[in-house]
């Protein structure tokens, strides 16, 4: 176990980019989702997690929020909110899932609703800066201690961003636990659905789980 590289916690910050493009209707939203850069799909499906991380139940992704609250299309909104982000390990898969739901709606001829002026959907994206923090863990006990100190941005990076945007296999924590020989703990971490709890609750759950093995 001594050969395993210590776990360094990273933090990440997002710069939000405006794409100068907006949608007033479902067909325009669909067109945008088809053309958007991957960083934009990522941003609109994850913004709520960062900006509203203290809320439970959390607001849905940006597309679902706009469709439900501005266009008042509850069924489509619910359908978009239910896109299982955990099931999509690639941004392009996620894009396909959203495009499919929007296309079905347009194909059914139910796309007459338009947003009132000033309430259009504004396409955005993000640029991510990843920075090493001072927190390093050499074993599970230290890991649990450090996990209680790092920012929610750090937790967010390792759980959400590293697997989806840096295309790493699984979440960083599971990978390190497996390297330490704690396969069961690694499997437990990999099976958490972090999209349905607040980041703070997720942190507490993760710490409690690690402490059982420390």
């Amino acid at each position, binding site marked *: 176990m001594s050969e395993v590289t210590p776990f360094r916690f990273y933090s990440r910050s997002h710069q939000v*980019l405006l794409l*100068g493009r907006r949608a007033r209707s479902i067909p325009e939203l669909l067109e945008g989702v088809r053309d958007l850069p991957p960083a934009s799909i990522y941003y609109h499906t994850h913004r709520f997690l960062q900006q509203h991380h203290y809320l439970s139940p959390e607001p849905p992704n940006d597309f679902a929020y706009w469709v439900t609250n501005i266009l008042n299309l509850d069924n489509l909104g619910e359908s978009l909110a239910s896109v299982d982000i955990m099931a999509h390990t690639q941004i392009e898969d996620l894009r396909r899932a959203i495009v499919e739901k929007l296309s079905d709606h347009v194909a059914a001829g139910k796309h007459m609703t338009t947003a009132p002026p000033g309430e259009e959907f504004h396409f955005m994206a993000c640029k991510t800066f990843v920075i090493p923090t001072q927190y390093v863990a050499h074993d599970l006990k230290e890991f649990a201690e450090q996990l209680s100190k790092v920012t929610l941005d750090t937790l967010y990076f390792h759980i959400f961003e590293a697997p989806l945007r840096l295309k790493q296999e699984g979440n960083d924590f599971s990978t390190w636990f497996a390297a330490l020989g704690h396969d069961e703990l690694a499997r437990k971490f990999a099976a958490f659905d972090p999209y349905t709890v607040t980041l703070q609750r997720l942190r507490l759950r993760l710490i409690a789980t690690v402490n059982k093995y420390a």
Partner: protein
Amino acid sequence: MPDIRDYTDIVGQGVIEELFLLAERLDGKEIQNINSTAVGGGVAEILSRMIPLLKQLGVNARWDVIKGDERFFSTTKKMHNALHGVDSPISADEFEHFVQVNRDNAADMTFAKDVTFIHDPQPIALVERKTELGSKWLWRCHIDFTEPRMQVMDFLNPYIAQYDASVFSAPAFSRHLPIPQVLISPSIDPLSEKNKDIPQSVVDATLAQYGLDRERPIVTQISRFDYLKDPVGVIHAYRKVKKYIDCQLVLAGGGATDDPEGMQVLAEVREAAADDPDIHVLFLPPSSDLEINALVRGSSVVLQKSLKEGFGLTVSEALWKGRPVIASAVGGIPLQIAHKYSGILTHSIDGTAYYLKQLLQEPEYAEKLGKNGREHVRTNFLITRHIRDYLLLFLSVFYPGDIVRFDGARNDATP
């Protein structure tokens, strides 16, 4: 003036540490901010707070102000109005003078070797020096330009195109531009007089001072007396609610006594309030930040029923105090409130009255909204987030790509 570490108790040690980590990556870079006024106005206010904090983080930041004559500022006022969508024609001579004043300033000014950050349109033409200096240039438009007049955009566009990136305060201000556009929302300072924590005794004393009864619900709108803030609409909404709930209304705000329109609005508000003793119209002097702080903290619900809004930071100021807010879905307000999660968004007097009744009848739900709102502001609209966004903005011009990963030692990411 607060120290950057004074914010630790509010945002957490990790957030402050992260600011230091980001600032470290700017080691050796010289950052210059330029605007057109040293005092007065939102831009000067935020720069006067931001520059000392950036310096404490170790950033070599400075702030310069351009000079101009009356004719120049009369032209920039017209530009400001035209960017807001007001018909405000500018003559060719005025444009020429505007450019000349910028060139005169450029000739006298010492520019930073790395980054020049221009605020608003007044100094926009300084960018003519960019190629010769070989530095990075950023332009921030603090103004709402949802529907700018084409004449002024046709004039500004060739200058905007020369910058490395532009910055806007709300998504609605974004447009087709040949340069990257960054979203940086304004922020509030939790340690300022208007927002800092105050003892309950100060709140009670302030309410007593203005004749407000703590035993009955208090509904408040804080804003200058301006048609666009719809204070008379607020009175109509209050009256619809008053039929069922014995509440009080506070309309508090300032305004220049030499602003004829403001005085006209104030007169109309007083007339609409008539002889209702539960409507308190408070015309406050500019030094009333502490009173405003106390009035908001003593309110059951805070309204911001604007018809048009730039960003509407009064919403964040109320949310930061944990108050439930009902506000119009205009300008930057939807960024601050997620409907039914961190507040209520409405579109009409009827809608405002409907939700006001609900929140006054269901104080537990109202408190939950207020609590969520405070957390939303903590994460997204405090000055520490604003500083982080500026640090990222300065870094972004040196590090291209969607993802910038700094591994291990400093300056190891590929610029």
